[in-house]
């Protein structure tokens, strides 16, 4: 693979002497399409606005309770052309899925279909108020209901809570339901068991809900140590939180056995659904004994990540936990009319543990996710899981000869391939490989997670990449890994070609500067 790029560029075209960083210094600091952009507060002005509003008579009487603002806020404005340019220039300093391959493990960076965006912007969804009379929002309630029904059928679970705002919020929802169920039967259990490979949100969530967290060890093959887990079960254990497929990229094949043991000991099984993309349409977690599982709509169901949110984290529940689901939830009466069950429905709410958020959840994400699901259908979703898993295994088997793959012998991986930093030369680390990949035009994989593998690199290709794109990535990944094995010092300074070189995170944390001053 000596021509890894078909754009016309060839490796021999590299200008060895001066490289990219050579050439004349420019007056602006810009380098053609790589444009430097000042901060808004350095270019905006207090008296400029990009919105034309009616002039209000400043002497008109007000009824502001004597609290009219006397001090300036300290904001600055730009006209529309300046605003569009400022943010367009900033956007170009970002990497996104639209630009290239984004194999960020456990984040499922798949293509975001634009039909989803178009549907979410229909005024019938985008321009309705959460407290409108329910007769005027029947279509919105029906979207929530339809999506909920899909999620139940895809997971084989009877109940669903739609209001959680993100994955971590969904986790909290599931754990609170477990807590409420134990409380309802007067069973004060104190401990939640979490595998040591778990994502940090699991212990954080359990602790937040007032539980003591205990780690469960993993086996050498990268799965939960079933014997250790069973040995720890007892009347003080409220439940377990297990990610399946797990953070090592493997399917927990003993999940059903674990679930049965937990149930026999009076506990509940929380499954972290972060990795549902590997099994959607192919395996139903309900068949494995799960009591609660959150679903990241922004992962499996392609709602955009948006630079860090908003997400959406509906939770599916077993028969045992469904009654404790949070308010509000959507029901349909005998005449087919949809309605919200809220605090006032003292009977219908049953033992619900209460409200987690002001309104009904992330409606804008529901319309996108439902659009995505309808586009794929049961067959397309199954193909999603299969292609995601196929791509990950292909990367695993294309890399394992040169890169330490700690669980390669444990069988096929699911939708992500896990590697470690063994045998790198010259003090080079996983971080250096990641930064080297940036220079190659990729967003790096997830690094240093899970913690159970030294220098972990978690590669999740997703199903929306072509074989050509994956082959090109493998070529680049291999090249960077070979440099790391050879101890190539230059890698320590990478990236060279990004809008910024490595940033001083120590300085940022020692003297935090969190707002513009001046």
């Amino acid at each position: 693979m000596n021509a890894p790029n078909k754009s016309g560029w060839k490796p021999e075209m590299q200008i060895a002497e001066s490289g990219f960083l050579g050439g004349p210094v420019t007056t602006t600091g810009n380098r053609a399409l790589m444009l430097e952009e000042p901060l808004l507060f350095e270019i905006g002005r207090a008296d400029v606005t990009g919105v034309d509003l009616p002039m209000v008579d400043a002497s008109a009487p007000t009824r502001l309770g004597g609290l009219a603002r006397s001090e300036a806020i300290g904001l600055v404005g730009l006209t529309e052309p300046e605003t569009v340019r400022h943010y367009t220039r900033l956007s170009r300093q970002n990497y996104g899925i639209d630009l290239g391959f984004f194999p960020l493990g456990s984040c499922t960076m798949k293509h975001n279909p634009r039909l989803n965006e178009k549907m979410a912007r229909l005024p019938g969804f985008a321009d309705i108020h959460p407290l409108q009379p329910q007769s005027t929002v029947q279509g919105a309630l029906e979207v929530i209901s339809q999506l909920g029904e899909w999620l139940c059928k895809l997971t084989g679970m009877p109940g669903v809570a739609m209001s959680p705002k993100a994955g971590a919020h969904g986790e909290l929802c599931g754990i609170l339901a477990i807590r409420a169920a134990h409380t309802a039967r007067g069973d004060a259990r104190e401990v939640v068991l979490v595998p040591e490979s778990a994502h940090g949100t699991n212990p954080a969530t359990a602790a937040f809900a007032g539980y003591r967290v205990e780690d469960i060890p993993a086996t050498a093959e990268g799965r939960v140590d079933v014997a250790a887990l069973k040995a720890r079960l007892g009347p003080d254990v409220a439940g377990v939180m297990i990610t399946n497929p797990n953070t090592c990229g493997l399917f927990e094949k003993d999940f059903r056995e674990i679930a049965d043991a937990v149930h026999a000991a009076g506990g509940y099984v929380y499954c972290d659904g972060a990795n549902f993309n590997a099994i959607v349409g192919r395996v139903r977690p309900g068949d494995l004994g799960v009591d609660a599982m959150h679903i990241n709509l922004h992962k499996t169901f392609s709602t955009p990540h948006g630079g860090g949110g908003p997400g959406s984290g509906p939770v599916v529940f077993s028969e045992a936990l469904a009654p404790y689901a949070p308010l509000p939830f959507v029901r349909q009466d005998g005449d087919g009319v949809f309605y919200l069950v809220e605090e006032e429905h003292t009977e219908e709410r049953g033992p619900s543990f209460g409200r987690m958020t002001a309104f009904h959840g992330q409606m804008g994400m529901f319309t996108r996710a439902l659009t995505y699901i309808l586009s794929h259908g049961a067959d397309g979703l199954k193909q999603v899981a299969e292609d995601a898993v196929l791509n990950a295994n292909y990367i695993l088997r294309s890399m394992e000869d040169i890169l330490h793959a700690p669980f390669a012998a444990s069988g096929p991986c699911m939708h992500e391939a896990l590697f470690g930093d063994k045998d790198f030369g010259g003090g080079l680390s996983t971080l250096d490989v990641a930064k080297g990949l940036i220079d190659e035009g990729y967003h790096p994989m997830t690094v240093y997670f899970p913690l159970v593998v030294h220098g972990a690199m978690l590669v999740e290709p997703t199903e929306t990449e072509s074989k050509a794109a994956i082959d090109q990535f493998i070529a680049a990944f291999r090249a960077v890994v070979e440099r790391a094995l050879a101890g190539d010092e230059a890698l320590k300074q990478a990236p060279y070609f990004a809008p910024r070189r490595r940033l001083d995170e120590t300085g940022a944390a020692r003297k935090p500067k969190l707002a513009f001053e001046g």
Partner: protein
Amino acid sequence: MRYLPLTDTDRADMLTKIGAASIDDLFVDVPAIAQLDGPIRDLPLHASEMAVERHMKKLAAKNLVAGDVPFFLGAGAYRHHVPASVDTIIQRGEFLTAYTPYQPEIAQGTLQMLFEFQTQVARLYGCAVANASLYDGSTACWEAVAMAARVTKRTRAVLSGALHPHYAEVVKTMAQFTGYTIGDALPSITPDPELSGLISRIDEETACVVVQYPDILGRISDLTPIAEAAHAKGALLVVVNTEPVALGAIKSPGEMGADIVVGEGQSLGVGLQFGGPYLGLFAVRDPKHVRQMPGRLCGETTDAEGKRGFVLTLSTREQHIRREKATSNICTNSGLCALAFTVHMTLLGERGLRELAAENHRLACFAADRLAKVPGVRVLNNGFFNEFTVMLDGKPAREIVRDLADRGVLAGVSLGRLYPGVAALEQALLVAVTETTTEEDIERLAAELAASLKETV
């Protein structure tokens, strides 16, 4: 399938490379009990873009669009005009399809935007530091209560009766599992907020007192006496704002001594969207409280060549490092909504926000005067910004609202909807007016309200 690039030939080649006979070989670890023999039954198969669009449009058409009728709802979500360029910018793929900026060298766009956002929010709230946003106002409110408990090492929160009831419910839900005690109350139907009762509930065990500004009835009061009373007992003042546009017209909570200011940012850039996704704003007045804050923070630094750049910082507070000792379990912020907010705020600027606030207030005053002339309607508030409470003497507001919806007017939010079953509040109607409301809309509301009151027994 239009979203899946692999061809059957690709799949076969890749399986060969892997050494698997079929895709089923890659799922061997799934126990037999969970193996399915094909696509999940009873569910439709894949559909074309046209077919899906048809389905979704049919659902959308069943909703009454706020912009199509005279519209007066608020109570934590406000309908403002969002400039066209906001949506254009948030749909740029580099923003839309980026992830949390873990690799700062290729995420400076998101990071610089967040730094600008944090600065705008901090200034709007009269605070030193704002975070990079939380899920929404209600969850931010709970996070403020939890933070106050960390700072003061006390666990009792006193909630104002005039805090949005959904926010109070969220706090109570969380508190029941965390051992916090919450004191709450119902709003008093008075022209000005009742402060003395609230102040008398603050004691030496109190971690924080939580006040909404403007409050759930739209009333505005000087928070300085509450701040002083809270501080005298070693408690923090948490101020909740659900309408950021108001702060273009009235004093900021920070100016009046609030320690933590949280709120809903939806009014700027985000739109109604039936309640979500919205934008939780969170700021602290004293920079020394920064390390107790929840959520992401973006900070300024330099790169290896000395150029200015931005990174996520102080992340040791967060779940991925502190695990069970984290300040919160939150992973994400509301990034794209924060971008929408910041672009809208940039378009407005100081001058535009103040003009926008003035126009909202002018129209609200016009509406209050006009509705006061409707027989059987009394305006409760002395002070208000763009939302006020009217009392429909002798009539349940919830039924009137439903009746008015049938007449093609979305008249406001009844307190009966927010506080079901509380007889003392059932005649109260919250009316919100923004720059999107016309004087004609207000005349229509007045006329239909008069007719409805006459006809409803």
